[in-house]
């Protein structure tokens, strides 16, 4: 009986080791490509938002961890575009916590003078067919943020049309665009308040590059 248990245990351990080795090998082989892909993906998004000809630093490496209540509870990342020492724009990730179906992850690019360069949805779980029009693949709605800015603290235009603002809602979905508009507004507000400090920081994202 004991012998059988011992043999089985050994055999299980052997299989565990063999399987782990296999996974480990594949991991080693694909590790670099995956990191590269993720960086490429990030760079593609950044390039769509901030025109690469306007800056000359490595934007995907000029990344700063930021924490602020305006950006949601999570730690967010800010990617800084500079030309020489001159600040050009920042792309900041942000969370809209009040989507129809949980958090919506966004990236908002803002030029140094506070004008929105563009917004992209990074991750969301909104209803397919209704709320997912915040994806550029599905609808150009997200482009309506381009070149908008916040004029003052009481800028009422930063709301969906139903609430008297300048952004359309979708048929059948008001909560999703409302959440996105508010999150973008908060991010721009945050940027306007903190842009000087932001550009003084040195890159500190703990990413393996």
């Amino acid at each position, binding site marked *: 009986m004991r012998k059988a248990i011992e043999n089985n245990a050994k055999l*299980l351990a052997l299989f565990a080791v063999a399987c782990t080795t296999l*996974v480990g090998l594949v991991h080693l082989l694909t590790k670099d490509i995956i990191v590269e892909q993720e960086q490429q993906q990030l760079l593609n998004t950044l390039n769509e938002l901030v025109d690469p000809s306007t800056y000359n630093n490595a934007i995907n490496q000029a990344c700063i961890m930021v924490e602020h209540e305006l950006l949601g509870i999570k730690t967010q990342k800010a990617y800084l575009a500079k030309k020489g020492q001159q600040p050009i724009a920042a792309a900041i990730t942000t969370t809209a916590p009040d989507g129809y179906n949980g958090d919506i992850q966004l990236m908002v690019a803002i030029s140094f003078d506070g004008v929105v360069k563009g917004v992209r949805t990074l991750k969301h779980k909104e209803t397919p067919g209704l709320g997912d029009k915040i994806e550029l693949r599905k609808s150009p709605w997200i482009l309506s943020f381009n070149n908008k800015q916040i004029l003052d603290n009481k800028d009422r235009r930063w709301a969906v049309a139903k609430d008297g603002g300048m952004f359309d809602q979708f048929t059948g979905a008001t909560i999703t665009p409302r959440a996105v508009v508010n999150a973008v507004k908060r991010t721009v507000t945050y940027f306007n308040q903190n842009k000087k400090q932001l550009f003084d920081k040195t890159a500190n994202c703990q990413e393996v590059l």
Partner: protein
Amino acid sequence: MNIPQEYKELTWQGLWKNNPGLVQLLGLCPLLAVTSTVVNALGLGLATLFVLICSNATVSAVQHWVPKEIRIPIFVLIIAAFVTCIQLLMNAFTFDLYESLGIFLPLIVTNCAIIGRAEAYASKNSVKHASFDGLMMGLGFLLVLVALGAIREVLGQGTLLDGAELLFGDWASQLRIEVFHLDNQFLLAILPPGAFIAMGFLIAAKNKIDAKLAEQQPKQQEAQIERVRVNFDG
């Protein structure tokens, strides 16, 4: 002539008679959840197919060393290892598709069709047969996934093969077919309830065809049966 007969039988079993999607009804979770478009279905189907072939071959290769008592944990280990490998490879080479399949890729581990085949067939047959069984079962599953994906995509978005570039690279974006234009998507087809309904129709269609087939050749079979009545009370 014995071997081809076995392969023929395996093909028939996997693709139709014992189809993992339509008959065994295994792996319903990925089946219903990711089939909102053809491309998602195809991606997950191919991943499952690959895992099934590899796990069947491996399980069959090690069957003589694995004692009966611990076979299940070992099968699970093998399947999990292959799924993780696939996940890593897809993350590396089809990044966008990996993103869009999300959680359902690691969930292949829990697809009962795979461990079901390992237990029911691969652990008792030769590597060649087991791999072929994996191929056919995987294909059967893939076909159901794609059929369901096509139905839901056409009804839901009016397109076919939308987002093919996620799977095949940029050139494939031309593969997208707009069957008809929808201003508002037909929500039911995209959401899980639509998947259940479409699945129900698929199964019904299969049963109908089976019934038709059975109708066509009953006499021949009946003629072969010779009943011997034994009456002990006599």
